[in-house]
């Protein structure tokens, strides 16, 4: 039976296949027909925007979430026009990292950013984005990390399966991919990348004067202002497709931090039956309407562990498209449990949307754990539980 020998001693046809594969950096299979990504002269039905790719299942346009491992779990990436809701962990250590990776991915791909927060100034958030690992030195980073991961176990010699001894323990994936980049959590993004990017910030204490009287309205004033701001940006920068003859289209990445916390003026974290307990759900509904009619994707982090009324959490989950929960082991009894000693927490994929589809792209594995290594945030299948 024939097999591909990559040491170059095969027939000429196999060698050329390998050469074209390394040139296009995709796979070694050649697809017949029009190429789905990158070419500008493709048919009018395929949109070619930097940093996006169509889903292999249903052609939905996807953007990367900034963590390639998370992209794989969500079925390729985050669909444009949808909301990714991250339920924060108890001490809010790991969810800001996912938030920042999403924004950093936008900067690296040249997307427009909209950062909204009630806690920190968006300019400060942008200063703290992680640095991208670019192609030439990322391979060295990986080898170093894999080596560090392997050294304690490399002295376990396998007797029968000895050929697999040197294989890396986990799937790292293609290093130089244009969709989805790896980020170094210990370094800051270079200043020139931030300055070259187009971003808008919404900092709630600046937009709302403190003496504003709260009028009895269905949405808290902070949410109303944020929705108006998002709508203005979408309209002014033509993300809703209102002027299609203009220059190259782009994607708007919206990031909203700590939505639902008392700093936004919402009291669902403080009381079970507050006066405006429907405010957040209405906000999410209107936001989803804005996103569906524009080329944008949104990430929201929410401290759901503080929400007192559990029914609201269920409503929020239904109103968002993709929902991921982070549970860190700090402070819980699992921290000292020897089964979990390699990991920092668990990731729960609570919901994956069904977009133009009857079934959703669920991955088969449900027990996922994450750990923040020295530089990288990795998600692995937790084989123990």
């Amino acid at each position, binding site marked *: 039976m024939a097999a591909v020998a990559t040491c170059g001693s095969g027939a000429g046809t196999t060698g050329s296949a390998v050469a074209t594969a390394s040139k296009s950096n995709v796979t070694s299979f050649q697809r017949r027909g029009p190429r789905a990504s990158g070419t500008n002269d493709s048919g009018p039905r395929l949109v070619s925007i930097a940093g996006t790719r169509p889903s292999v299942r249903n052609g939905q346009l996807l953007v990367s979430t900034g963590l390639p491992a998370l992209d794989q779990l969500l079925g390729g990436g985050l669909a444009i026009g949808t909301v990714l809701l991250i339920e924060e962990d108890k001490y809010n250590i790991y969810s800001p990292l996912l938030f920042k990776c999403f924004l950093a991915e936008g900067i690296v791909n040249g997307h427009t950013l909209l950062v909204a927060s009630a806690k920190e100034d968006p300019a400060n958030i942008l200063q703290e984005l992680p640095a991208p690992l670019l192609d030439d030195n990322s391979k060295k980073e990986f080898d170093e990390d894999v080596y560090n991961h392997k050294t304690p176990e490399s002295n376990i010699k396998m007797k029968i399966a000895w050929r697999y001894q040197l294989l890396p323990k986990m799937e790292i994936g293609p290093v130089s991919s244009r969709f989805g980049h790896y980020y170094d959590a210990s370094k800051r993004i270079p200043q020139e990348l931030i300055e070259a990017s187009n971003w808008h910030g919404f900092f709630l204490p600046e937009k709302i004067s403190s003496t504003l009287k709260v009028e009895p309205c269905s949405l808290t004033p902070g949410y109303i202002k944020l929705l108006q701001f998002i709508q203005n940006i979408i309209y002014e920068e033509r993300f809703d497709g209102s002027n299609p003859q203009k220059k190259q289209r782009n994607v708007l990445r919206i990031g909203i931090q700590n939505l639902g916390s008392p700093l936004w003026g919402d009291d669902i974290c403080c009381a079970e039956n507050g006066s405006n307990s429907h405010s957040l759900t209405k906000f999410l509904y209107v936001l989803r309407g804005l996103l569906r009619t524009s080329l944008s994707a949104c990430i929201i982090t929410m401290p759901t562990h503080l929400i007192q009324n559990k029914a609201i959490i269920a409503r929020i989950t239904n109103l968002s498209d993709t929902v991921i929960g982070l549970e860190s082991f700090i*402070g819980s009894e699992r921290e000292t449990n020897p089964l979990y000693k390699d990991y920092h927490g668990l990731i729960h994929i609570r919901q994956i949307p069904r977009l133009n589809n009857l079934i959703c792209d669920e991955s088969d594995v449900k027990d996922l754990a994450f750990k923040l290594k020295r530089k990288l945030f990795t998600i692995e299948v937790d084989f123990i539980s």
Partner: protein
Amino acid sequence: MLDSLLSFGGLVLLRDSVEWEGRSLLKALVKKSALWLVYHDFFRDPLNWSKTEEALPGGPLGALRAICKRTDPGPITIALDSLSWLLLHLPCTTLCQALHAVSHQDSCPGDSFPVGKVSVLGLLHEELHGPGPVGALSSLAQTEVTLGGTKGQASAHILCRRPRQRPTDQTQWFSIFPDFSLDLQEGPSVESQPYSDPHIPPVDPTTHLTFNLHLSKKEREAKDSLILPFQFSSEKQQALLRPRPGQATSHIFYEPDAYDDLDQEDPDDDLDI
């Protein structure tokens, strides 16, 4: 660590309860850090009906916001005797927003002076409120001190959340002298743990079987020294395992034998032409 609580800035939340009161600790911390003390009393006359004090508009919240606009560049500690009192009179969200605005002023709008660090020290009686407001305030707090103790000895469990770092916690035993100075102590005498299980030997599931699963020492040695079929000597193993230069992935070695036909048009060799 108890005496350096206020050096981090931000909101420091003191949670006390009926058994272990925190007002004396609050006064001790104020005494430790204060050089210049300004006292506002809003309890006696919250709406300033008797017009004795200078009119601070907006009540206690207005006073907090007025501190926000100060021009004094030194570090400042604001001690709130009871956040519980404020929580009962104001909506929780307003209080959270005001505390956040006061404790995070790296750049106050309209000021040209660099403002020093602000610490807000608030006393919260956690038994007066439900889990909602307490949870909301503790998520805002930079440091959280929960008072407890055993047998007449008070302890403070300090949970310090630095941004982007793991929270650290520590328990410190202390007592307060009558003149409100703080005395840090070691813990009470260590007694036997109240929850020490009697030693249960681990159950070995292979003991009561009808067949023998154990290996004796000789049998184990014989097993280890057994040469498996298709097992190369270790030199050949190392030679095969050593990664070739330029290739990091695994590869399959194949030598086509006489019956193979590398015909790309017909790889299965089943076309009859």
